[in-house]
């Protein structure tokens, strides 16, 4: 697993609330953080569009992974939405052309699990910013920092 992350280095991980405000955002390089803020922010449009599609079949409803949202020259942006409309966005460097859907899905599953643990904290108020060390650790692992 660790190897996969190493190859698929995420440069930005974001959690977006159901009101589309950021609940958590972490970038590999804090100096260019704003650029990623913009990128994640604009993908909300696409996520919303994907979630809004009315003609989803039953199997589609259960599919939380939204796939590739946006592909830029240097980055690929993937999305994932929980059933409670919490969105996860991961920006991967597209230098690695060997990106496979399954690997990205694994990242999101891990992120979802970490998120679920974070909000299970009885002191967490739904809708607040996520401030959890364990969640931080999980995100950093995804980003390959540790």
């Amino acid at each position, binding site marked *: 697993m660790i190897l996969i992350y190493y190859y698929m280095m995420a440069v930005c991980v974001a959690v977006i*609330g159901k*009101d*589309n*405000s*950021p609940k958590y*955002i972490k970038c590999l390089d804090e100096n260019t*953080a*704003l650029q990623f*803020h*913009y990128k994640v*922010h*604009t993908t*909300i*449009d*696409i996520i919303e*569009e*994907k979630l809004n599609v009315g003609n989803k079949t039953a199997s589609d409803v259960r599919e939380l992974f939204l796939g590739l949202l*946006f*592909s830029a*020259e240097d980055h690929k942006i993937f999305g994932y939405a929980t059933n409670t409309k919490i969105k996860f966005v991961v920006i991967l460097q597209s230098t690695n052309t060997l990106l496979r859907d399954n690997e990205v899905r694994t990242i999101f599953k891990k992120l979802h699990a970490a998120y679920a643990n974070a909000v299970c904290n009885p002191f967490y108020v739904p*809708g607040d910013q996520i401030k959890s060390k364990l969640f931080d650790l999980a995100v950093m692992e995804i980003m390959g920092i540790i």
Partner: protein
Amino acid sequence: MRSAVSVILSSPVPDNKMSHPDYEQTAHDHAALLLLLKPIGTQIKQKTVARLCERIIKSGSRFNVYDSTVGAREILARFVREHPVENNDWGEFQTHRRLLGLITFGKYDTQTELNELCRLHETLKVKYGATLYDSRAILLGPVESTNLNEPPKSFSTPSNFKTRAVFYADESCPDLEAQIAECLNSLFWILESKRLERSREKIDRVSLLLAPFEKKDFIGLDLESRNNKKRCCGRITKHLGDLCLQAGLPGDALSHYNSAASILQAVNDWLWLGAAYEGLCTASALVLYPNMCRSLPLQRNSSLQEGSPGKQRRGSQAVTLPTPPTIDVLKASMPHILPPEEISKKYREAIIHYSKYQNAGIIETEASFKATRISIEQNCTLQATSFLNNVLFINLTLSEQEKIDRFTTLSELFTSFGFARKASFCLRLAATRHVSQNNPNPDWQQCYNLMLQVTSGFKLSLDPVEMPSDGQRGWPAIQIQVINELVAAANRMGNPALATRHMTFLLQTMFNHLTPQERKDITLQLQAVSQQCEGAPVPLVLDSGTVIPPANLTNIPKTKSFTLKNLQPHLQPQKVERIKEDHGPFLFTPINFGSLERKNTSKSKMDYLWVEGDICEVSMQLINPLPFELHVSNMRLLTNGIVFESIPETITLPAESGPIAVTLAGTPKEVGDLEILGFSTHTLGVKSNCRLRYMENMPHPQYSVEVVPALPRIDVATSLPQTASFSSGDNIVTSASVTLYGGESSECTITITNVGQVPIEMIEISVQSTLDAPTESKIFNWSDENLKTQLPLQPGASASLTLYLYAVVDFLAPTSRNEISSSAYLSQPSSIMSHSGPSSLPSRLSSPSHHTKRQSELTSSFRSGLSSHSGHSSLASTRLSKLAVPLHASNIIEGQLKIKYSGDAGLAAGYCRISSVFVTIEMLPSVQITSWDVLPAETPAQFYLVLDVTNMTNHEMELHYTQTKCIYMEGREPCRIPVPVDRCPLNKLSVLNEGGDSAELERICAEHIASLVDLRWQLLGIESSGKATLSGLTLTQDMLDLVRMSPLQWEITINDIAVKAQDELTCGLGECVSVGVGVCNALEHSLSDLILSINFYQDHQNGVNNYRLDTRLSIAGANKVMLPTLQEYGRAYHECRVVFFTAGQYKIDIQCSSRESTPTALAICSELINAGHTWRYIPPLEITVGEC
């Protein structure tokens, strides 16, 4: 989509590339005839041109032409206001890019002007000559011409003017539409003829059609090769398709495109293959979505704008549009039509092919936009997004303006399908392009305007009120950057007011998201900016009409609490007369109507009153969150309703200081309801209106308080020293204290000064204390009349009032006499003399030890003057003692002298103010009567009240107890004094009727004694004097008999000589003395069953009375007689004789007793009183028997 081949396939030919992208194109424009609308000359007004253009576009965008073979053909026309001549070069590649028609507008007044217009028109014709089919000149002249197409009589067109002109005299141009239709018709037919001409050409003989940049590539190539032949053939087929499409034959066009695509694919002619695909797509879209085109009536302002040709959108479709035909029906007539899902697929292919040529970048861009519009029409937003995303990757060397246009168009398209975030992102890029370094003429104004439009996409509302305070709306990091950019743009375009406004907004709304360092930086920037232009809480209106709502700094300083203050207690207005309102029989209703709502509204409405013209205050707590000193000036209250004059306040808050209390004050200038909405501040160079409504953690959005008319104010001073400390009560303004010995009087002068602005017309004085009313009235006394004469009191004037103070103490020490009296009352003692003689007194005199016990009792028990009769009820006495603890426990009496005053309007409105003077009287004991008894006096009209008096002070005392008699007492010395008192006359007792009881009798007697006995004491050391009263004496039945006049009047005769009590009687031994006793009933009712008895006894003066005198005297006649009844005022007489055998002193006890009644007898109350009672002749007669 991008491919590296593009570089290989096309060498850069910059001069040939189409440098004027038209982002507004739609797929339908492929089928339209292109016309240029151009005003010429300087005379014509923009407005006129705009109106004429609108009419032309409305009438001419879509028209039908009837053809004998096909029937009706729908032809589209596209009108543009600008057309770069270079774009015509691409006309071979896609025919709709050719400018086919020209319509000019001009106005002339003179012949020279007309000549100039004609010249300009011809110049334009030459400019576009390569492609132009036809042109019209619409000329507005001063006079009407008879023939529209001929100039008016006095004018003539130059000979080289070969254009068909239309001459109008006024701007209404009546048959403009017909003229345009005629022009369009002619254009169509020329086109149709060209199409037919082309279609008849031999395929193998046509020349190669070229895109502008290709010309160089084909130099030196073998034009005769098979490949090239095919290429020529494919391209001309595609070209035919274009013409068919323009000529209203989409079916033919589709088949041409289809065959062209297959030919061109074979020869790898990618560019033209892309064009063929695009043709297929556009033709299909035209058929499938006929309503997508722009031929519809548009709103006036958005129709045509300079520099953006044909800026028209789908979306304003009229209801009357034909419904698009279904694909199945169409498939039958047009076999090559693409189904909807194929269109975008084919378009994608076309774009990929275009992308292989760097010089076709603009074609690719335009194609992407067109494809997007089709996708939008198909409702495939993700498809549309991907087309638009592609646009960003097309590498074009564009001018900054074109880049701006590109981003603006992208933004518009994103907006059109609801991708507000992407739209804002693009628009922001457009804004930055306006001021980028590469831009030769940066335009900060434009940048700012675009930035303003960006805000909505980032969920940024420029009204701080709409921004949630917790910031959970939008992305703070981005929002902060956007605001910063707005600030920068505003600064650079030289509008410091806007910069200040946005900076204020940033601080206000984003404060929680800024790091402390950022906060500091922004605050300092704001201070700098606001020096150029001070921020004020007014909306700013831009030139474009946009209104920037005011931004108020409510976070700096942060308000922790905001509370209205009541006036000081003594200044609070009170209702003069509280009329009890009739609330019905129920004081409480459990029914709560809309409980929540009511609670809220009632709380924000203050339950106290403010007074016009008085300073009213609001207290606040402020927090400075900034790491440096904050100077807040000009703080005032914001009010609504009546006029309120606020007093500006200035404070300096230390860095990061906690809650600091600030009081804002002001004066209401009118009467009515005052609403307090918040306060205004001036800090960091920004004026803010901090309204409670928009502040966090404020319980109420506003407060309202009622203001009553102006009331006077007084200052109160007393002549007595102030109390060191007094229990602070309501509205106490000053205090007075005095020490008095019991029975002493004092005066206190109270000076009332009117310090207000209103004359005092009413003053009412009252006293409030824990005492009961009678005691209170004894202690405090004053003259209301005296005060009334001093009214009205003008402002500045003063009045004085004398308060008389009297120390009321109970001079009687509580003793055990209650038990004595009650037992004496309840059971008539058989021993008759035991309680009345002097011998009985010592038993009730105080021993020293007893005395101290009483002292302690004094502090714990209380006896009012009226309650002595209730001695048998221990319950009652304990209750009383509880009630009266304050009076005697400390001997300090506290009272409040309430001065209720009002005047002028306030009085008219029924309000007054109450100031209180706290009066403390320390009461020291002076004299105390520890016990008392009554003794018969020498005359029957009087008796002696014997008092044991103790001087409770440490001073020497002089006690006057009658007019003439006085006694000196040392400090703490007890003393016994006899006071002669007149007996209580029967007429005082006459109020006692048959129903009266003994308690009442006792009370009357006690009062009688109190009124007659006058004990005046004087302390020799300290020159104070006072008067002790005896109210509250308790008297036993036997005492009562002495105190009151006997109801039976005695007439005693000795030897027929009437005697008086003090008479000395003598007689000799053996002498017969006749004793006559007459009894008169002085009562108003008759007495019955009386026994009159005459007894002789000898008083041994040692407490022993000897009644056994059988050997010493003899009585002749009955010494006891029964009197069955004695009528009211009736008289009975009895006589007997006595002979004394031995010498000595004898006493005669004459008494009259009523028969004892048994408890079982049903006796009425009055009988009970008299029953078993003995009346005695007092003092007993004394007869001295001398030895003869």
